[in-house]
């Protein structure tokens, strides 16, 4: 193995922290003070599991940052899976420091790339399992959709250890007319630090939609950087965070509209209970000349306890003249009138709260296009909110 450390002394100084504007609510530097050893490789295939079990024909399992299991000879003819020797370095390193670290510190082959062939359709599942205690692991993975390809990518982040650091860096490339729906469900250990960074590159006419379901960890961040070419390309960048206990979840995204005629829609909903903390940072940039851009962003959160916290920074940076942009941001409590109404009809207080909270989050789930994943997402939410 090329490195015995997931994070060396030198890396510690490069970790993003509270002085970095984009990380001030999700400080890692203050949290990780010692070098972190690399997590061990698993010696056998992981048992079946994860949020989207049974929903995809092709399933790739990564355990502790390393490829653990994949279909090999049984791989769908729509797909090609290969190693990429040229890491291409992290082009977005300055904006995604954790992705940069993943590129440098990742153990094993530099980059796995999964390609969906032109015009083909695929359902793909990635399981990112962390079975480690006190160690760390990085992973890089690329997904490429050739022209006209269509795919759904289902990611489950499965924590099976304690105090680990899991760092995943993904790259998505969508050629002309390709359509990708990405749905991720994160269930990390409460003591874990987990970062998933994704960069998304679209060509005109492509469509990228994502729904992130994030349960939080000691520190958890999902970051998505999308370069939007306009030209009829469409982006949906949704998410749900549900944090209880002392969990922390951060959904950060940047969508940059680079040319005319692009659409972006974003709906994030969060629920913070106990001492949970939710963070939303959403930025939509409309570059000079990216006229006729239509971008909508909404972030709405419920705070269900006095000690829970939600921090939100929605930003629209518009450098073009002829655009339609809107954003809405609300943080509040459950509507007491609606609660009384539900109880008057017979729902006990806890059930009434769960029903209304699920309904609040449900608006995001309804936007998931893949039917099986939509129901799995609904179940994921329902189980975490204690509803029926």
């Amino acid at each position: 193995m090329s490195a015995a450390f997931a994070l060396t002394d030198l890396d510690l100084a490069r970790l993003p922290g509270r002085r970095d504007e984009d990380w001030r609510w999700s400080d890692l530097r203050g949290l990780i003070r010692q070098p972190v050893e690399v997590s061990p490789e698993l010696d056998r295939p992981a048992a079946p599991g994860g949020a989207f079990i049974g929903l995809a024909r092709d399933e790739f399992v990564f355990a502790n940052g390393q490829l653990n299991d994949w279909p090999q000879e049984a791989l769908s003819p729509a797909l090609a899976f290969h190693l990429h020797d040229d890491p291409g370095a992290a082009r977005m390193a300055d904006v995604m420091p954790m992705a940069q670290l993943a590129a440098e510190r990742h153990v094993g082959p530099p980059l796995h790339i999964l390609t969906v062939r032109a015009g083909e359709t695929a359902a793909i599942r990635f399981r990112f399992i962390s079975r480690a205690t006190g160690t760390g692991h990085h992973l890089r993975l690329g997904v490429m959709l050739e022209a006209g390809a269509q795919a759904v990518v289902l990611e489950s982040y499965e924590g099976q250890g304690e105090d680990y650091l899991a760092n995943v860096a993904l790259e998505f490339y969508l050629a002309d007319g390709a359509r990708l729906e990405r749905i991720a469900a994160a269930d990390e250990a409460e003591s874990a630090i987990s970062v998933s960074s994704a960069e998304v590159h679209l060509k005109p006419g492509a469509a990228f939609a994502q729904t992130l379901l994030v349960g939080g960890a000691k520190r958890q961040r999902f970051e998505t950087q999308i370069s939007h070419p306009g030209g009829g390309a469409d982006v949906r960048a949704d998410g749900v965070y549900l944090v209880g206990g002392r969990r922390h979840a951060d959904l950060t995204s940047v969508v940059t509209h680079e040319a005319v005629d692009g659409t972006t829609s974003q709906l994030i909903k969060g629920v913070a209970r106990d001492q949970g903390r939710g963070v939303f940072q959403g930025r939509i940039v409309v570059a000079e000349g990216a006229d006729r851009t239509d971008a909508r962003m909404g972030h709405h959160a419920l705070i269900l306890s006095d000690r829970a916290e939600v921090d939100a920074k929605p930003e629209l940076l518009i450098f073009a003249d002829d655009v339609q942009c809107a954003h809405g941001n609300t943080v509040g409590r459950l509507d007491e009138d609606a609660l009384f109404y539900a109880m008057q009809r017979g729902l006990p207080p806890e059930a009434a709260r769960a029903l209304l909270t699920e309904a609040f989050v449900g608006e995001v789930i309804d936007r998931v296009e893949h039917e099986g994943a939509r129901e799995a997402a609904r179940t994921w939410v329902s189980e975490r909110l204690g509803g029926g």
Partner: protein
Amino acid sequence: MLSISNLHASVEDKPILKGLSLEIPAGEVHAILGPNGAGKSTLSYVLTGREGYEVTQGGATLDGEDLLALDPSERAARGVFLSFQYPLEIPGVPALTFIRTALNAQRKARGEAELSAPEFLKLAREKAQSLKIDFDMLKRPLNVGFSGGEKKRMEILQMAILSPRFLILDETDSGLDIDALKIVADGVNALRGPDRAMLVITHYQRLLDYIRPDRVHVLADGRIAASGGPELALELEREGYDKYARAA
């Protein structure tokens, strides 16, 4: 059935009900009329247990059981139903899901078996039809984007499905045109029976042409100022509430 004695209640320390007493035996429909601010809605909220309505004296029992000691859902499970003056919108919850969840919560609280999805759908279809409610409307989030009249009809539908024993109708006629009013009244009348009682709260006599009360009470300044038969409602229609307001 329902017995209210010397009930005093305050909202934000302001006394609203000031010694209200009322007996509504099973099988009877009682109407309460009164001017704005008399405490009509407060009475309905106190009986159903809404937060912020504080009982300072007196009590209310349903079949001898202290109603005020129960939380709103426990009262619902015992058969207390309030048709809201302004029914709430519940985004994200289809009407069918909401009603089924409520019905099964009530049944569970009473120790009855929950209704299966097909059993429930059959019941809902039947009741919707009798209230001339388009069944597809029940697949939409409850009351979201519904007109005032549709919301009221949805209340009556819930009433028909939940089959409560003690019904409170709070200004159920407001926002209804005459056709909708007839449908709603038919729905309410269908629930009349020897084991049920109703309290109809209204501003105007009009509703009482369709839901004939056995007794009529005038609520003024937080207590019952007069009681009588249906003729009292007609008298109020002619003469207004002035003399009760003055007396109070």
